[in-house]
């Protein structure tokens, strides 16, 4: 329950005025100009899930091909494109964006704010992501999809061994998605550090905000490495530079260092937001605040730091000096400490709580069971001798699906079941949710557990076929059957979404009796998110005191205004204007897309493409004059005096 500052009549008037100020325009114009973080966030989540399902279909195709030895279903050329697109889509178009998407939706609500810190930049980021993803998929469907894997090792991906435009599309897709990721990251850092609700000191910040803060900084430090790598690749391919050509003084290992300096933190960029989600779900359904909150925050920070120190464990087989390798062994093994600590704290919270086993908590339990196993195989992979045996085999495939599906997709599904009612106003069906969970859990293990063994008995990754008689046939068949069960689970999920959207139980503001600020407003939240700015007095705002959330006024009603607070103590600092709906982000994204796609084909596109981009940015940043309404009001005020 939220405290009230005015009478009921005045409140209705206030709501109407806020609605006028914050509502997005209707119709097509509204669709194209929206800057509301909830609208952008929703689009982002839906787009990310579409890419998830598309990449899932590719996975099914691969499993169909590998179900039998020497299957003739898919040829090598098509297969290589399929596994490249599967990895690329899952990593760049699903996993990273979906976590940021959820954050775009939730972070402003958790901060008690009216919109995200840079609303137009937010819209721009979404459009760039959408166009980049659409580009690579259209290219794939036109048979110019990537063919050298999501990691695109040179020289295989270089001009000599991958002629044609396939790899160029891949490299430029990287540019698109990294721009989009960076855009979200800077917004979230600004939002979390400067626009938290008054009283939400750093030591009271919800763990999802902490996770997103660490993640966003990681994005800012990690992504430039891969943009550099892919830009070098494009210029090697397009204008004959020789960054990666050993014959001309370049080095193929430069690619691997740059790629994995990004690539390993990337895994944690995907994983840390999921940890944040898990903490919220565990707290809510155990009805107990998280155990050892300070240790949990430190563990997130430790994960973030250590993640930058272990990329070389992807390169143990490249013949780097042994002493150097052992440093990365230690760093890789060390990261199990903060992760293990968090696992313990969640289980302990359930232990000491009053748990209710609703679907979100089921997914969290599934997460713990699967992720811990993946973490342990990760420890094994950190040991150089063992890694040299199982590196680039199905053991690694099993390992990272355990950590990524277990560590990120299970929490994500839990999060969807958890926050769906907030976003739509209706609960997802618990019965279908249980079916969804159990089919996913069983299907996942049937698919991926045998792969550990396949790797140990010699099956390398990225092969489109294998010979009979190596002992791999049965396990591949079982894995393929398991993948069908996962597909069934996804169908159940989509059915649940569709049915619940129409006929689901109405949720109300806070169906789970959760403690976060996002539950202090209606479901779905109004365009202005909160009637008054909530004031936070503890770590679990809605569970504190007598269950009445204190609020404060004083933030603009007739103009879009955001409240900035101080970084550590979250004391009200300044009010600043917040941008309204505009077409410029879309136009800028279109111009960016033109530049990026053009430069796949010709280097001069960088020059000519910069002109429309500059024009749209000028339009975007043109200083706003007073709106017509403001002008009229100013005129009225003048008359009055």
């Amino acid at each position: 329950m939220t405290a009230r500052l005015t009478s009921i009549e005045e409140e209705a008037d206030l709501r109407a005025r806020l609605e006028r100020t914050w509502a997005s325009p209707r119709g097509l114009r509204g669709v194209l100009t929206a800057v509301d973080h909830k609208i952008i966030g929703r689009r982002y989540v839906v787009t990310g899930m579409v890419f998830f399902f598309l990449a899932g279909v590719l996975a099914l195709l691969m499993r169909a091909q590998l179900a039998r030895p020497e299957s003739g279903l898919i040829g090598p050329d098509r297969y290589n494109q399929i596994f490249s697109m599967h990895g690329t889509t899952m990593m760049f178009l699903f996993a990273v964006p979906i976590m940021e998407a959820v954050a775009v939706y939730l972070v402003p609500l958790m901060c008690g704010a009216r919109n995200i810190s840079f609303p137009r930049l937010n819209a721009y980021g979404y459009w760039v992501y959408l166009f980049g993803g659409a580009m690579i998929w259209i290219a794939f469907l036109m048979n110019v999809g990537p063919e050298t894997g999501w990691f695109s090792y040179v020289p295989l991906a270089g001009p000599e061994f991958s002629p044609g435009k396939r790899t160029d599309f891949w490299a430029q897709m990287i540019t698109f998605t990294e721009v989009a990721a960076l855009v979200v990251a800077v917004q979230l850092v600004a939002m979390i550090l400067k626009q938290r609700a008054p009283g939400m000191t750093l030591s009271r910040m919800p763990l999802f905000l902490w996770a997103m803060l660490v993640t966003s900084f990681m994005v800012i430090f990690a992504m430039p490495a891969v943009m550099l790598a892919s830009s070098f690749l494009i210029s090697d391919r397009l204008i004959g530079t020789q960054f990666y050509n050993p014959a001309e003084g370049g080095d193929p290992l430069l690619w691997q260092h740059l790629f994995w300096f990004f690539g390993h933190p990337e895994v944690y960029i995907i994983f840390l937001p999921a940890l944040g989600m898990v903490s919220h779900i565990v707290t809510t359904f155990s009805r107990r605040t998280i155990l050892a909150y300070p240790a949990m925050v430190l563990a997130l920070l430790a994960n973030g730091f250590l993640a930058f120190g272990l990329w070389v464990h992807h390169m143990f087989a490249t013949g780097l000096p042994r002493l150097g390798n052992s440093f990365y062994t230690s760093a890789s093994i060390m990261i199990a400490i903060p992760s293990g600590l968090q696992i313990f704290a969640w289980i302990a919270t359930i232990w000491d709580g009053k748990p209710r086993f609703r679907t979100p908590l089921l997914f969290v339990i599934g997460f713990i069971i699967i992720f811990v196993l993946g973490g342990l195989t990760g420890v094994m992979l950190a040991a150089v001798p063992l890694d040299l045996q199982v590196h680039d085999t199905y053991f690694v495939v099993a390992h990272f699906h355990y950590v990524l599906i277990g560590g990120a997709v299970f929490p994500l599904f839990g999060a969807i079941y958890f926050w769906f009612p907030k976003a739509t106003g209706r609960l997802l069906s618990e019965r279908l949710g249980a079916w969804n969970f159990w089919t996913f859990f069983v299907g996942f293990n049937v698919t991926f557990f045998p792969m550990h063994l396949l790797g140990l008995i010699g099956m390398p990754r990225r092969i489109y076929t294998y010979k009979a008689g190596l002992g791999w046939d049965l396990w591949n068949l079982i894995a393929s059957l398991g993948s069908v069960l996962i597909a069934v689970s996804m169908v159940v999920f989509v059915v649940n979404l569709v049915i619940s959207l129409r006929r689901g139980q109405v949720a109300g503001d806070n169906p789970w009796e959760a403690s976060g600020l996002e539950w202090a407003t209606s479901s779905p939240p109004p365009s202005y998110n909160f009637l008054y700015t909530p004031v936070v007095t503890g770590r679990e705002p809605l569970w504190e005191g007598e269950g009445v959330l204190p609020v404060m006024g004083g933030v603009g009603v007739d103009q879009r205004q955001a409240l900035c607070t101080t970084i550590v103590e979250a004391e009200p600092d300044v009010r600043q204007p917040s941008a309204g709906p505009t077409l410029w982000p879309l136009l800028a994204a279109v111009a960016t897309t033109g530049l990026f796609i053009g430069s796949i084909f010709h280097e001069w596109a960088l020059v000519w493409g910069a002109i429309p981009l500059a024009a749209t940015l000028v339009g975007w940043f043109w200083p706003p004059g007073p709106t017509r309404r403001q002008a009229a009001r100013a005129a009225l005020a003048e008359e009055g005096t």
Partner: protein
Amino acid sequence: MIRRSLVACGPWLLVWLLAGCAGAQSALDPAGDQAARTESLWTLMLWICGVMYLLVLLFLAASIWRARRRLAGPPLSQGQASPAERPLLRALTGWVGLTVAGLLVLTVGSFVVDRQLAQAEAGQALRVKVTANQWWWKVEYEDPVANRRFITANELHLPVDRPARIELEAGDVIHSFWVPNLGGKQDLIPGRTNHLTLTPRRMGLFRGQCAEFCGLQHANMALDVTVESPSAFTAWSEHQRQPARAPSDPRLARGRDVFVGAACASCHAVGGQTAMGQVGPDLTHLASRRSLAAGARPYSRGALAGWLADPQSLKPGNHMPYVATNPDELNALVDYLDSLK
């Protein structure tokens, strides 16, 4: 041996019963020092990690079991209000300590094994140079005496109980040399030279396979490995040093003429003949090898004929072109190549 596998496979017991960890391309069936040491590290890892995993699962199960109490009441916003807070925090500290201890053991274990592998160098090592190409292996046996060196392809013979120091290079893109029964893998990178030492301890037929994605036919880039007695190895290498004999049979001579006259000889070499091509595998003793086209098919005269008649159907995308020959020429060519024992 079987006991070893049993220990290594411990938790995989069911799995083991069904399929077995033994195999010609298995890291769990070591036939050399390097693979055996790695496998012992695997066993250590499996047990320690298994126990840790079990602890987590037990704790999780217990916390779910406790939930039967169906406690009601308001949610707990302050941890200190719970009587279990302090014991749980102590347990948390204990758990972190346990994790650190377990990880320390594993790290030290990893370092020890890594050190052993690094020390495996030996003066009396057999020296072999392997060059990986899209999608085949060039294998050169070094010798201080220049004319005792010889070249073969897609097969590696090693004498048992003698370390082999393998020099690894790549001709085009990155590949990875991996014979799981003998030891871990090592990448072959253009512009670099890597080394790998293998000490086979058990005679037998093994299989290696390229482990770094290298393009269209990454899946069909296998290496036949034979570990044999020193005497058998000596006999084999002496035989490999012999050039191919000039065919006396007119039919074989015709096949040789087709080989030289058509495009074959521009890519392939046959020692002692005029064919000197270096782009493709050396064919001097082609018919003595276990398989064809880097493990794509077991070697047989029929498979060879099929391969020559249409190289792109067996191994789509490989760099061997179809060379137009009439059936009569093809037969002669197959006869000739099949005579290159």
